[in-house]
């Protein structure tokens, strides 16, 4: 697996900040309150999966972490226009804290399967990212509420259906993005303009001495 991010470029920073903003904007869209869910269905978590699947593991994780920093400093970017440390300390905050890991997992799998990325693989990557946040999420619920770990871990029943739907959506967007605007292609061959000054033979091979 080649190192795709040898150095963070200005464009990387731009992608990270803009995607963090994107995740915030998703929190501003109206929430759907479904009767059987204690928390409304939001598409913000979908933003986390997309951060990983579109930007890759490294940038996706950073974008999500940046989003958490915005929450931490008191910006109302969580659904309902709330934010602040309180949101990061409440019983369901464990999921928030692992969002960057979720983005990373999805990104990692998408990068690994990049050359032959299908909707199905995208879906698996997205589900993996969604599920990655469960362990800490459940543990946090257990710790903050004194519930036993097993009781707390039943909350996946509540989250999984929504997560499967979101993963399906994410997969479709990720796969289309690969066609439209692939950001995870390996760096181009050395005929690209960023090379040093000497003229290079087409094909990028080193000039013969």
């Amino acid at each position: 697996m080649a190192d795709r991010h040898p150095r963070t470029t200005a464009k990387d920073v731009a992608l990270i900040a803009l995607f963090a903003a994107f995740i915030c904007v998703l929190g501003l869209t109206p929430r759907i309150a479904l009767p059987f869910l204690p928390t409304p269905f939001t598409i913000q978590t979908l933003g986390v999966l997309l951060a990983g699947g579109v930007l890759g593991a490294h940038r996706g994780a950073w974008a999500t972490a940046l989003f958490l920093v915005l929450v931490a400093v008191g910006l109302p970017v969580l659904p309902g226009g709330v934010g602040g440390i309180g949101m990061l300390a409440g019983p369901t905050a464990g999921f928030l804290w692992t969002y960057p890991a979720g983005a990373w997992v999805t990104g990692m799998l998408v990068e690994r399967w990049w050359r032959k990325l299908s909707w199905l693989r995208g879906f698996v990557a997205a589900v993996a990212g969604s599920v990655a946040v469960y362990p800490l999420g459940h543990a946090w619920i257990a710790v903050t509420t004194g519930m036993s770990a097993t009781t707390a871990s039943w909350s996946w029943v509540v989250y999984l259906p929504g997560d499967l739907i979101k993963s399906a959506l994410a997969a479709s967007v990720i796969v289309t993005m690969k066609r439209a605007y692939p950001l995870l292609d390996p760096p181009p061959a050395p005929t690209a303009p960023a090379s040093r000054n000497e003229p290079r033979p087409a094909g990028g091979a080193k000039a013969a001495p």
Partner: protein
Amino acid sequence: MIALAGVYHPGSSALHRCPAGIKLFVLCVVGTTAMIVGSLPVLGAGIVLLAVGYAIARIEPRAIWRLSRALLVVVAIIAVIQALVSGLTAALVLAARLLLLVGAANLLTLTTPTSALIDVIERVLGPLRRFGVDPGQVGIAVALTLRFIPVIATQAARIREAQAARGVRSYRSFLLPLVISTVRMADGVGEALTVRGFQAGGARHG
């Protein structure tokens, strides 16, 4: 950084003027204590103190409600479950704990401006310099993100309108154009960052 109004509730009380670092430290202490202590009277006293804190800070009840209502629902549900499983006392202790924890954290957010919190974060991340992290960029990254939230939100609204005009209303036909637009913007933003002398990660300019 006022383009997006923070949760911060402006004021000049003692709590507002207290340095952010101290407030954070106190919050950590309160939070840890709340999780350890199991006695209802002690937790109750803590909540009363907290209420006094809110009064000193002169926070409007409406602001408190806005910030807490979602969480209160969750706390209520969890408390009910706990009551059924472990009895009323356990449920009350649980509710008191969460109220104290979240209430204290919210009080901090309500009395501390965003910029002060960013300064604290940058200072806390100081030691990570040896790992190549530049804490000074936290403030820039946050500001950069803040700048583009309204831009992307406007795009989102435009896309929704276009969808409505076409009679289409799926999440997919909303998300995909928005993601594409966001990624495209990054090209321009990246160029702008470069020409304005911004150095990302390891300095690579000669």
